[in-house]
């Protein structure tokens, strides 16, 4: 059981490490961050229901 938990935890950690970091905050703040880092803002519109 412990082994299964450990493996699951590893998988969760591994997938968390892979997941992209989405900006938390308003779009205006995301734009300001992009400007300061000389990047673009990628806005992904989706329907989460």
């Amino acid at each position, binding site marked *: 059981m412990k082994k299964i938990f450990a493996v699951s935890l590893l998988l969760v950690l591994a*997938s968390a490490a*892979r*997941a*992209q*970091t*989405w*900006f938390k905050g*308003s*779009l*205006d703040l*995301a*734009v300001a*961050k*992009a*400007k300061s*880092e*000389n*990047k*673009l*803002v*990628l*806005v*992904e*519109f*989706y*329907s*989460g*229901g």
Partner: protein
Amino acid sequence: MCRLLGQQYFSNARFQPFLDKNFVLFQADNGESMGAEISKRFAVSGTPTTLVLGGDGAEVDWFVGYRPPAGNYQAQLERILKGQNTFKALESALAVDPKNVGAIFGLARKWSERHDVAKAQEKYKEIMALDPDGKAGFYTDGNDFVTAPYAEYAKLDLAISNSLGPKPDLMPIRTFIAENPQSHLVKKAFLFLASYYGEQPPGREADKFFAELEARFPSDPEVLVSCLTRIVRGKGPADKAVELAGRLRALTAFSPDPDINLVIAQAYELSGDKAKAADAYGEIFMETKVQNLAYGLLSYAKYWVDRKEHLESALAMAEAALKLQTNEGPSFFRSIAGVYLKAGNESKALDVYGPAWLENKAVAKNDQEINSYASFWMRQGKNLDSALAAVRKALEIRPEAYYYWSSLSDVYARMNNKAEAIKAAEKAIELAPATEKAALQKKLDGLKDSAAEKN
């Protein structure tokens, strides 16, 4: 987040460094108040939509939908970063030259993709006013590679957008067909009408249209599939379905397509001919497709490995070919091993076609196949102990075969065991027919010379 896009692209470690380097990522969920407000602000109506903004908050470009594989999505973002055909670049071009028809057309397509019919129509009308004769340039559709003047595309897109809505009016499309009989876009116009009539219940008008469509494009598989699909959906007439199915099979025999053969099978089923349905879309058909795909993947892998380009994809496709074709003959595994060796992955080559393959009793092998294994590794100068074991095995089966003695000599020579190489070459000459002796003697002389030089 669109599930597929999330899984295939945003959660794919391969693309993370690119995203981290170039973008701040922001999600707008239409189902939540902030996301809905942002959707409204940018008039985004469909999802998934990807909108790229600059550091000033202005729109740089956008694209709608997600078409796997993930590389397609990546390519779109790379294009935007390069400023190729972006909304911003097109707007800049137009600022320099307000009569730039190509830029106006590009913007019209952008708005059309964004489902902003009014803005798209405005641009299309500008094109028709500026370039009524269609001389300003051409556009090639990336999906079907049909090339036509901007003005013709504008005319057809305007006709199509006018025909959409709660009360479809097909007349503008009919007018386009009548006024542009030689246009490469006539088929597109017909297929748009087919998509409309295909949804209508069978009736005089729809029947008349499909008869016209078939008469106009009697040898076009795409058109015939459209005609046949409608008959299958309407469950008849069966004799017409069989006639179209036969024509489609003949037209697509060079490279049968599972989606087309599915409709062909449905047509035969409609006529009660289950045997023909199974012939068109049964086990043998699909197994042949799988086999062909495996060899197609292998050819792809070889092509790119030879050029030392797209190596990651080439190896992924070699791996996929292996998964598809576990019961193939030795030449298949040999070719895959060759791909891995060219890519510098010897251990993977050995996994596929190494000692384990040679010793695997479940895989039946004759002496020729065993000798081919030995020759393959001899040429590579790798896995030579196993190559030696293989050629000895071949000789156990056929000890009188001079060519296996010659192979044995080659393997020993590659192992730098000149004495044994000479002995095996002498045996090969002893057993060889008169016509082969001279060539073998030359090889033996070479071996003796190199042995003497060494001493």
